[in-house]
């Protein structure tokens, strides 16, 4: 009987080393919750600005066309939205990093190892590609695909990441991709799709991961 337990332990050891050597497992569920909350706050501010602008411009407003950007003080709206987006991104990144850093301290794994590096590269490549692509669209006056584009490219980045961290991230990725694709046909509601994907999905995912691995 003890012999059997010994072998079970051995198999557990093997499994654990295979996991730990190939995946970055310090990623904290709290990071997901924090990033999702930032996204919700950001989306609320952005929606507030868009609504205020809508009231000013009246019936000529076409949220889905992005025409407002060039009219009157539309440029101001664009700058405001851009600023909100930038602040949201950095706040989310900072908080996500902090929680993951704390977790890596707790589990005693180095934050910057081979697995972390691999994860970073695999997230950054699709993210930066998507970012440049969307900026080029915006520069050419195509605004309506910004939100679905964010969801789709970020979804692909997460899909890539799922091979190098907890495999459950793949569900987050599929949800984001599906949401992004649906969003392509309903661009007038982009801000809600964006808030749902970046806000709610992250919070749900983060909570589930925290529940499963860190509680």
């Amino acid at each position, binding site marked *: 009987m003890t012999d*059997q337990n010994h072998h*079970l332990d051995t198999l557990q*050891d*093997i499994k654990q080393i*295979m996991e*730990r050597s190939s995946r970055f497992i310090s990623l904290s569920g709290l990071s997901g919750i924090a990033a999702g909350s930032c996204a919700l706050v950001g989306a609320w501010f952005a929606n507030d600005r868009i609504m205020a602008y809508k009231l000013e411009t009246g019936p000529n407003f076409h949220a889905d066309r992005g025409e407002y950007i060039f009219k009157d003080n539309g440029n101001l709206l664009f700058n405001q939205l851009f600023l909100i987006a930038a602040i949201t991104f950095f706040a989310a990144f900072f908080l996500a990093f902090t929680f993951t850093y704390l977790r890596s301290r707790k589990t005693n794994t180095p934050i910057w*190892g*081979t697995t972390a590096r691999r994860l970073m590269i695999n997230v950054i490549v699709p993210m930066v590609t998507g970012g440049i692509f969307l900026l080029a669209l915006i520069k050419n006056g195509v605004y309506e695909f910004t939100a679905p584009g964010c969801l789709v490219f970020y979804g692909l980045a997460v899909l890539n990441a799922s091979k190098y961290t907890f495999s459950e991230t793949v569900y987050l990725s599929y949800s984001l991709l599906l949401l992004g694709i649906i969003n392509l046909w309903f661009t007038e509601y982009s801000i809600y799709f964006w808030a749902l994907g970046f806000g709610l999905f992250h919070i749900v995912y983060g909570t589930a991961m925290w529940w499963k691995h860190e509680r």
Partner: protein
Amino acid sequence: MKNPIENLNKNFDSRVRLGLMSALMVNTEVSFNDLKELIQVTDGNLASHIKALEESGYIKVQKGFIGRKTNTTYSATGAGEKAFKTHLEALEEMIKSAK
């Protein structure tokens, strides 16, 4: 009845060696320092186990440089992967037959 122990490989009869092989099964190559981190052993201990597995032809060594610092990485050979899989299957058999 067949003796299940006959397939257990004596070469993998230590926590360090099991750890080494496990890490090398899922990664194409792993550096000495990463292995040390993963398995939590001393340099000397790790080196001696690596040497033993290398002599059995289960792992191979690549010596390289990052700048001027030496960077030695290890990977499993085909024979090593096969032997380790057989070993795992034997372990599985033992657990099953003990039930």
